[in-house]
């Protein structure tokens, strides 16, 4: 039997949601995960890419023994997460983006030391590693600062160090760079890559909805939406499937009611996504043939819309997502939580 770091078979999770008291007692069901089949090799940096609400966190919770699946099974570090969680737990760790774990009255070092003790580490080893890891993320000058005095970004760096500190066989990072500035995100990505390169037996599963992060870091990526894995391969292979298509970006003057439906009705247009911003609009197109761009321009100019910029580019994971889901990830997120924009 192959020794995978993570293996799932037909994994599913259905949440039962209670209505309010006035509603009937019948519980609604929310399918968070459906028939997820994944294998992650040891030493791999595996990415789960999907919009908010896609099921990424549910999957991580199952893999970290915090949630039971309603169907299928999962193994982490070769142990069943439901039947033998006590064998999985010493081998894993997890950090979530935006978490506020620890105690504000304790210093950075004390918080990290405390969590290391729950894994049975010696205090000496723990304190040495804390210093090394804080140096790598640029937090060594805050080692004696109370965690309540840290900014959100610095606190997140401390949380990330907590995950690496116990040197798990499999580390789960759930949106680790959420809310971090560019510099802090770069430090975290450096730590992630360095940690994996330093020991080829380590495995890391990362969830993100930042395409660039997935593209830059991950050996393989699973694209997940509405609880289902739509594709799983290396970023290069995922994009390769799109390379026979032509991808264009067109920036225009305001569209005045123009709908991208007109363009998607064209047989040569595979996908079209539209974003309006600050008196301009951006059209992203996946075309079956490059020549079809002429028809698109023709339609746009006939509607008295000015083309400000037109460029052809290489496919990205965003395009792969659009190809698979039919919408850009940002648009899926807006649909899932329409109130966020109010």
């Amino acid at each position, binding site marked *: 039997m192959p020794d995978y770091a993570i293996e799932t078979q037909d994994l599913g999770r259905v949440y039962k949601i209670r209505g309010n008291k006035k509603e009937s007692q019948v519980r609604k069901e929310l399918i968070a995960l459906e028939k997820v089949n994944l294998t992650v090799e040891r030493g791999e940096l595996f990415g789960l890419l999907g919009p908010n609400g896609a099921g990424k966190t549910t999957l991580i919770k199952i893999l970290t023994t*915090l949630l039971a699946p309603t169907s299928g099974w999962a193994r982490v570090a070769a142990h069943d997460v439901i039947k033998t969680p006590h064998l999985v737990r010493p081998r894993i760790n997890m950090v979530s983006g935006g978490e506020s774990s620890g105690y504000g009255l*304790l210093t950075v070092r*004390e918080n990290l030391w405390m969590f290391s003790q729950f894994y049975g580490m010696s205090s000496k080893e723990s304190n040495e590693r804390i210093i090394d890891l804080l140096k790598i993320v640029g937090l060594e000058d805050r080692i004696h600062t109370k965690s309540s005095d840290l900014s959100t970004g610095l606190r997140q760096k401390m949380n990330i160090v907590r995950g690496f500190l116990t040197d798990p066989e499999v580390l789960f990072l759930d949106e680790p760079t959420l809310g971090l500035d560019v510099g802090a995100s770069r430090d975290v990505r450096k730590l992630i890559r360095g940690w994996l390169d330093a020991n080829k037996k380590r495995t890391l599963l990362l969830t993100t909805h930042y395409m660039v992060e997935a593209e830059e870091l991950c050996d393989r990526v699973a694209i997940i939406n509405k609880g289902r894995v739509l594709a799983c391969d290396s970023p290069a292979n995922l994009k390769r499937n799109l390379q026979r298509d032509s991808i264009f970006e067109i920036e225009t003057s305001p569209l005045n009611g123009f709908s991208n439906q007109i363009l998607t009705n064209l047989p040569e247009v595979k996908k079209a996504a539209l974003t309006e911003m600050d008196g301009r609009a951006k059209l992203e197109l996946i075309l079956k043939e490059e020549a079809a761009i002429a028809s698109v321009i023709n339609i746009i100019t006939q509607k008295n819309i000015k083309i400000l910029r037109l460029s052809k580019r290489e496919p990205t994971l965003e395009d792969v997502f659009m190809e698979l889901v039919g919408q850009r990830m940002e648009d899926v997120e807006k649909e899932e939580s329409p109130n966020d924009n109010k």
Partner: protein
Amino acid sequence: MTTNDALAFSASEKVIGWRLFLKTIVARAYPRIIGQQREKSWVFFEIFLPMLAVAAYVYVYRAIGAPEEYVGFVVVGGAMTAFWMNVLWSMSSQLYWEKEQGNLALYIMAPNSMMAILLGMAVGGLLATALRAVAIILLGSLMFHVQYSVASFSQLLFVFFLAMTALYGMGMMTASLFLLLGREAWHLSNLAQEPIYLVSGFYFPIKSFNFWVAAAASFIPLTLGLDAMRQLIFPSGASLGFLNVTVEIAVLITLCIVFLVGAKFLLDYMERLAIREGRITENRR
């Protein structure tokens, strides 16, 4: 040293079993003890304010000409309120706050026992609160000239140990219970605070109650613990005691077993429920 060298940690020596259990207790007790040193406001809220209540009862007893032992009863009772407050606000409600903070999921996911986490909270809380209780006893005894006559130090320490074990065992048990009740935990703590001051006889001997009221109040370990300690440290304590000290010790031992076993049972139930339904460890959903 390069980044890769720094990250190529040598193989960890990680302890398991009872040593991990002990390490977890010490680590979880640490924030409680260290927190007290860093947050000095407790001196005002947990020594000065309880002293006001103690002083009020002392002046009432002196005004009505009550036996002088009553002053000692009040000082000892005032000191023990610190433990009750600690159990209510830092044990019973604690798992709920840990969940809100995001720590509960990390505790469950770690290889340590959740029972060790609760014991760590209890030990840390007990040690930190003992300092407050001692401060109240010293201050009260000096201010109101309380005379003590301890019959048996070993028995007194044993009773105190049993009362604390049962009390913090109750806190450990209710921690899971309050967590299951969610936001109501806050209201339950508020609800339990003042009535327990009354029925546990913090400021008067519970013998003043009808037998059945006192017996029902004995479910709170501090009631009998306090009563037995008063009998052991004041010359006329035995005449004002509710039950014989030996009987009270036997009941306290029973309460220790019931609460600690109950804590383990409820903790396991809470963890199973958390994993099955996925809502207890969820703080952002």
